[in-house]
Every structure is written in structure tokens, then in C-alpha cells.
């Protein structure tokens, strides 16, 4: 077998699911995630996995079935996009509250309206408060690799939380890239068997799931849930390093690119981080002290670690691929700048909105951002206004 093979992002993710061989996949198709489930259901039909595939009638039912299967003691996976995730919304909260370590491939697509099938991050951002982990991937290889890590992180006995592996619709999901697909036995051994937190049908030790939870206990339960996220940054780093030892590709909370001596930094999520890296390379060729900070973990949000990366920089740009309407600024900008303030890091920050509904982001857009950063660095200040990339103005 060649070292790398050409695969679409979705097919690479379906390959990862085949190798993980989950107990249950309950899913409903939606563009651009459909191929994941389509390819995986073929594996089920061909008998190359042992998975119980549940063809449900909606995403709400898909997530409900996943939660039940997870509580029943199974390793569970699913895939969706955009409106599909929106329809799962109330069940997403229940999945995290009940601490079911489900893995969901979230192929990022703009939320309606108007209807749009292309990439932005409004679906991820919309679900940011629901208690799921969100790991953003730059390319097909990262999406493939992150599926294994998501299982390992979510199922860690210190965690037991559901995880979304987020990758950009069409840009990653439908682009053919060279992907290193690991040997089945090697990844299976690395992921390990599923260990249920507690067996569901143990009549010697019965327990009650999802009971009425009022003024007297709900707050304490939520406080317990908050605690679970504190250990996550370490565990994500730990699992990412272990994956690196096994397969040669290490991961963490974020990927700093040419950051050590960088003065001007662009912070981004997803496939855009690849464009940023190309522009950094080009500008470094011109002797400019520029760098990129690619966030991988959006939930948990590593505010202190980001602040440590950005401390001492002259100007920072934060790129958002979705808006929080009516908010003071876009979600990533708000969260990064809030983290900087809380960690006493003072640096001019420029916020950009780009790529909504799949609008292309080009290297020249990112070059313009670095030019703006140079001006802000010289002035020592940036107006806290929203800037737009690739918009007709």
C-alpha cells in the first residue's frame, strides 16, 4: 500500500470510522456531510464493520438514538452539517449533560437563511455553548487523525464528553488530498476498546438517568459539568502527543506557525489556516516578521494558552467565519480578546469577518490583513470595528 492515497476529506473520515468500527452509527444525510454516512453505510452493507447502522428520520432522532446507544454501553458516531446540527440542538445539550462520549463529524456549512450549502462556521458557533468539544481541522489528514483522537479524548474516564470533529464543508470535505491512512491494526490498537462508564443493564446496580432536576440539584450538576472541562486542555495535548508518537503527526490545542519571532499574527480556524501559512511563507520570504496561530480546540477554549502565544506581539488579527448578530464583535474575536484582557495581555487586535456562505478567501485577502496589522502596530492601536474580507463594498 502506498504511503499516502488520494481521498476526499469525507471519505478519509469514513475510513477512520471503518477502522474504529463503532458499535452504533445513527445518522441522517445532509450536504456536505452526506458522503461520510454514505461511504460508511456501504461498509456496513459489505460487512466490513460490525456497526449497527440506524437510518433515522431526522437529525433530532439521530442524536437521540446516539445518546441512547451511548448510555446503553456502545461506542457511537454520527455526522452532520448546518441545519442538521441545528435540528439536533436540544439533544446536543442532553448528550453532554449525560456525559455520553459520542463522536460527531461536523462538516461546517452555513446556516440558513437564505439557504446555502457552502462553508462557514455558523453551525459550530451556534453549538458552542452546548457542552461538546469542538476540534477544528485544517485538511483531510487532520480530519482523519482527529477522528481517532476525538474518540480517545471523549472516552477518557476523566472526561466522558461528546466531541465534534469540525472540518470545512466542500473545501475539506470534497477536496481530494493526499492522506496517510494508517494500518487498521495499528489505529485500532491505539484507540483501544470501548469501556462503558457504567453498564446500562446491570440489575445489581441500577441507576436513574435524566431525572427531574429542579432548583435543589440542577445548579450543582452544572457545576460538576464545568469542572469536567478543566482537565481537557491537558488531555487534548496528551492524546495529541500520544498520536504523534504512534503515527508521527502530533497535535495540541493549537498550531503556532512561525510564531517565535513573529510581530504580526493572524489567528484562524479550519482550512483558512492553510492559506494563512502560505501567506506567512511568502511574507517571510520578504523578510517580514509574521506568524499564524491556528486554533484546533475551540471548545474547550484555551484562552490562557492563546494569551501566552500572543503576549509581546505588536498586532493581532482574528478571522471569524460567522457572526454573532447583535454582538459587540464576532465570536472568535470576542473570545480571544476577552482571554487577552483576563490574562493582562495588551495588544492591538483587528477583527475580520470573511468567507460567509462559502465566499472564497484568497491569499491577497490575508496579505491585506498583514498590511493592516503593520499599520496598527505602527500606531499601537486598532479601531475595534468589524472589517470584512472578500465582501463587495
Amino acid at each position, binding site marked *: 500500500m502506498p504511503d499516502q492515497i488520494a481521498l476526499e476529506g469525507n471519505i478519509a473520515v469514513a475510513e477512520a470510522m471503518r477502522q474504529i468500527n463503532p458499535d452504533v452509527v445513527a445518522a441522517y444525510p445532509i450536504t456536505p456531510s452526506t458522503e461520510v454516512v454514505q461511504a460508511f453505510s456501504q461498509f456496513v452493507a459489505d460487512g466490513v464493520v460490525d456497526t449497527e447502522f440506524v437510518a433515522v428520520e431526522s437529525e433530532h432522532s439521530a442524536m437521540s438514538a446516539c445518546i441512547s446507544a451511548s448510555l446503553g454501553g456502545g461506542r457511537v458516531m454520527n455526522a452532520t452539517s448546518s441545519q442538521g446540527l441545528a435540528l439536533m440542538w436540544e439533544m446536543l445539550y442532553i448528550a453532554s449533560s449525560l456525559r455520553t462520549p459520542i463522536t460527531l463529524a461536523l462538516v461546517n456549512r452555513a446556516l440558513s437563511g437564505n439557504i446555502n450549502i457552502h462553508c462557514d462556521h455558523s453551525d459550530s458557533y451556534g453549538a458552542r455553548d452546548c457542552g461538546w468539544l469542538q476540534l477544528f481541522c485544517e485538511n483531510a489528514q487532520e480530519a482523519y487523525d482527529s477522528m481517532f483522537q476525538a474518540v480517545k479524548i471523549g472516552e477518557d474516564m476523566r472526561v*466522558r464528553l461528546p466531541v465534534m470533529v469540525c472540518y470545512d464543508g466542500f473545501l475539506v470535505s470534497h477536496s481530494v488530498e493526499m492522506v496517510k491512512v494508517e494500518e487498521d491494526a495499528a489505529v485500532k490498537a491505539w484507540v483501544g476498546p470501548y469501556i462503558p*462508564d457504567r453498564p446500562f443493564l446491570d440489575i445489581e*446496580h*441500577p*441507576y436513574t438517568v435524566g*431525572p427531574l432536576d429542579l432548583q435543589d440539584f440542577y*445548579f450543582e*450538576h452544572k457545576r460538576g459539568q464545568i469542572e469536567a472541562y478543566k482537565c481537557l486542555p491537558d488531555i487534548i495535548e496528551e492524546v495529541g502527543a500520544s498520536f504523534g508518537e504512534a503515527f508521527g503527526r502530533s497535535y495540541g490545542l493549537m498550531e503556532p506557525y512561525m510564531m517565535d519571532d513573529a510581530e504580526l499574527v493572524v489567528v484562524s480556524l479550519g482550512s483558512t489556516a492553510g492559506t494563512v501559512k502560505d501567506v506567512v511563507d511568502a511574507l517571510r520570504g520578504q523578510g517580514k516578521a509574521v506568524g499564524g496561530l491556528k486554533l484546533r480546540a475551540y471548545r474547550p477554549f484555551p484562552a490562557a494558552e492563546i494569551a501566552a502565544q500572543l503576549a509581546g506581539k505588536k498586532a493581532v488579527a482574528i478571522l471569524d467565519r460567522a457572526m454573532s448578530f447583535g454582538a459587540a464583535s464576532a465570536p472568535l474575536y470576542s473570545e480571544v480578546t476577552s482571554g487577552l484582557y483576563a490574562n493582562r495581555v495588551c495588544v492591538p487586535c483587528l477583527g475580520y469577518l470573511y468567507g460567509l456562505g462559502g465566499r472564497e478567501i484568497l491569499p491577497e485577502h490575508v496579505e491585506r490583513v498583514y498590511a493592516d496589522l503593520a499599520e496598527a502596530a505602527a500606531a499601537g492601536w486598532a479601531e475595534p470595528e468589524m472589517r470584512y474580507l472578500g465582501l463587495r463594498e
Partner: protein
Amino acid sequence: MMYPKDTPWHKLARGGIIPGAATALAYETGGWRTFRPVRDDECCINCLFCWVYCPDGAVVCEDKTVKGRGFDLDHCKGCAVCAEVCPKDCISMHPESDFAQ
């Protein structure tokens, strides 16, 4: 097992579960009640309709008899289904304030 009401957050089981089954009996919901059922035992024919229809199992039935047994006021929410289904109209609902000391 129900947790005592003063249990701090870090002593609770993960996922908001309650260890043990059939724990509803240990959770008192009588405090939700605005109207309390009162049965006129002279008129009651012991048909057990109130016992069958009560959604909370709060009609006390012993030796196949509800007459004279009263209600489990720790769990009765005052929904008045018993009063509605009684074929002899011998269950009436009274404001809790009538019973305040």
C-alpha cells in the same frame, strides 16, 4: 439512593444520574400542591377510580380499600384528577391555605 439536599456539587455522581432505581418515592413533590383533595368517606363507594387514575400514586390504598385511607400528601400535586373521575363527586379540592396552622 437520594442525595441529601445539602450535598455539595463535587459529591454528586457524573452525568446527573441518581444511583439506584425507583427513587421517585424518596422525592417529595407535595410542596407543589395548591389545592388539596378531601374525600367524603360517607359518600365513597370504594370503586378505586381515584386510585387507578392518580398520576402520582398518591391515593392511599390498603386492603383494597381507599375509603378512610386519605392521600399521600408528600406526593400529591393537587392535580384534581381524582376529584374529576369520582363517580359520586365525593372528592373536593380545597386551597392549601385552609389547612395552614
